[in-house]
């Protein structure tokens, strides 16, 4: 067989090998998340949340038909190109209409496809109205957005801890930059209380050494360093290295899913005075604890941060589908936006954001703030304000 011919046939084969999608009565929920690479913990957490939810949902009825949940994972490794490819496969080949898509950075690439096919995007990411807005009615953010946290939570914490001078350290990516913008704005609004933004340091995305940058930031002696937008490990490293340079103040972190053990492991006593939103020092609900226990039993690992939210999202969407009595994403979106939910591990959940994002697509749940003392999370008594 001649070479070009060989190429021809394999090409044809390649292009036609689109695996047939199984046509049995299952409600497919995709998970388009990093399952490999540095951010894999988030994606794997979502997988597990869905799996735990599937156990609890069992079979359910939609329009008189029996369905069961089926998880379809896609590895995006947070690469926009791969995410587009994954979404194409999900929609066109595996006929998945509902799915988690993790990461603000990849949404620029997938939103057009989401709009085109009315894909139901269970959005796990920090960026606010850039993504959840009237243009994207089928995009629901199932976790707190950074603007939500900045505008409703941050001021309370500053008041509580009497923080006047705040600096920022974060990755030099869309997230980091967006956060700096908001932090500056918030600080500006709080001028009355004597709050001042002293400086920012944007570092390389995978940086592990912050000493030099910290040195410059610490020279402006801040009371608190906002390490928003950095993942757990990085926050730990920043804390450790800042303490080594003699920094005594607070660290405030919100979007990252933090685990005290990891932080203390990295930063030792340096982890003290790390403040974080969305960390429950004590289980808010029985369900929260139950999920944590089941997770550790099933996966022999401390519970990954995204598990609870993924669990809740899965169950809530299924409920909405049942109520809507159809899989039509537009209908379900309407149904969901108007509903509230009792089985969120964080407590009763509902939807908000029409003022801030122009559409009810931002989840509202009770949110805690905690602070590390002597290597353990302790509750920080502040109540979250309302996002205008």
């Amino acid at each position: 067989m001649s070479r070009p011919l060989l190429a021809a046939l394999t090409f044809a084969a390649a292009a036609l090998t689109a695996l047939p999608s199984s046509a049995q009565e299952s409600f497919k929920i995709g998970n388009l998340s990093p399952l490999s690479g540095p951010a894999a913990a988030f994606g794997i957490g979502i997988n597990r949340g869905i799996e735990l939810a599937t156990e609890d949902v069992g079979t359910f009825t939609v329009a008189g038909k029996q369905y069961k949940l089926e998880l379809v994972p896609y590895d995006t490794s947070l690469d926009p190109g791969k995410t587009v490819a994954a979404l194409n496969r999900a929609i066109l080949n595996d006929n998945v209409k509902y799915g988690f898509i993790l990461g603000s950075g990849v949404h620029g690439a997938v939103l057009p496809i989401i709009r085109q096919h009315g894909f139901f995007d269970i959005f796990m990411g920090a960026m606010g109205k850039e993504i959840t807005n009237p243009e994207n009615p089928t995009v629901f953010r199932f976790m707190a957005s950074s603007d939500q946290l900045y505008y409703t939570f941050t001021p309370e914490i500053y008041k509580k801890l009497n923080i006047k001078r705040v600096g920022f350290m974060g990755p030099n990516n869309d997230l980091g930059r967006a956060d700096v913008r908001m932090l500056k704005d918030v600080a500006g609004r709080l001028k009355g209380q004597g709050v001042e933004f002293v400086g920012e340091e944007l570092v390389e995305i995978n940086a592990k050494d912050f000493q030099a940058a910290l040195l410059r930031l610490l020279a402006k002696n801040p009371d608190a360093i906002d390490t928003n937008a950095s993942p757990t490990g990085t926050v730990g490293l920043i804390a450790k290295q800042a303490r080594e340079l003699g920094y005594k103040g607070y660290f405030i972190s919100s979007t990252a899913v933090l685990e005290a053990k990891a932080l203390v492991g990295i930063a030792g006593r340096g982890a003290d005075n790390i403040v974080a939103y969305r960390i429950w020092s004590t289980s808010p609900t029985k369900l929260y604890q139950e999920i944590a226990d089941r997770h550790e039993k099933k996966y022999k690992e401390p519970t990954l941060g995204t598990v609870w939210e993924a669990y809740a999202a899965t169950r809530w969407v299924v409920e909405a589908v049942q109520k809507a009595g159809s899989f039509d994403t537009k209908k379900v979106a309407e149904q969901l936006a108007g509903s509230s939910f009792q089985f969120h591990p964080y407590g009763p959940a509902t939807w908000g954001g029409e003022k801030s994002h122009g559409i009810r697509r931002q989840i509202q749940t009770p949110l805690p703030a905690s602070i590390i003392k002597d290597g353990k999370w302790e509750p920080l008594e502040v109540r979250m304000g309302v996002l205008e």
Partner: protein
Amino acid sequence: MKRFSVPLLLAVLVVLPFLAKPYALHVAIVVLFSVTYTAALYAVLRMGYLSLGHAGFIALGAYACVILSVRLGVSPWLGIPAGGLVAGLAAWGLGALTLRLRGIYFSLAVFAFGEIVTAFFRAFDWFGGPAGIPGVPRPSFFGTPLASHFAFYWLVLAVAVLGIGLLYRLQFTRFGATLLTLKSADSEKLAESVGIPAARYKTAAFVVSCAVTGCMGAVHAQYLLFVSPQVFTFLTSTDLLIYAMVGGLASFWGPILGAGVLTALGEQLFSVGYWKTLVYAAILMIVILVLPGGLIDLPRRLRARARAAIAAPEVR
């Protein structure tokens, strides 16, 4: 048989969209992208130069097209040649500086170039910064934008066929043959002594390769409707190398075969996370160690094996 196979290949490609499901077309499009990139990379490989930063040229093409159409409102059609032009010019500059270096020095220089390109686009918000630029317009044909996979497939196919066709023809012209005289330092000395302006030839080949890459990069951005510094990275460059190696460097069709097979395979390995990389790497190592000629060499080897078996039947 051989005479008909290229037309046959084209025939398959033309018939495909009428038979295939949209998803298969998506796969076909992605395959065409990496096939073209790899064929372009091969044009440099075969003169003994290994580029560790070809993704940089894809990115240049993509960004050139996006900046023109999104920021400056130029027609997406113009974006495609513009992408090729920008990548080609960059290649010209880089080539003039680095093609006198042989072997790994060149490779690392191009690696650095690739890193610098992404660092550059990440640095400036006007170029989209780290978030990249969404909402890239697609060219429209008689007023209707090529929105569907079916419509866009033809654009990709056209650029791929033109690009690969050009590379294919060039390789088998006198120009392509002369490039082979520059493979090693010694033979380059001889080439110079018979009046071959080595530097100019090398640069020309590099420019052509990168221009084709850039054009396809522009189309790639239009397909994704988006571009960002994370899309075309160092890992993209190494992927292209793997495709070429697995396909086999002995023939023009080797890299194309490798890119086709591995890309299509990759599309099937979404759910498996790390295992996908593992499969790729395993195939690569097997090929390098036991099938130095690459996949393209497999039929010949099998035939040889068969002949050997007939000639000397196993004796118990």
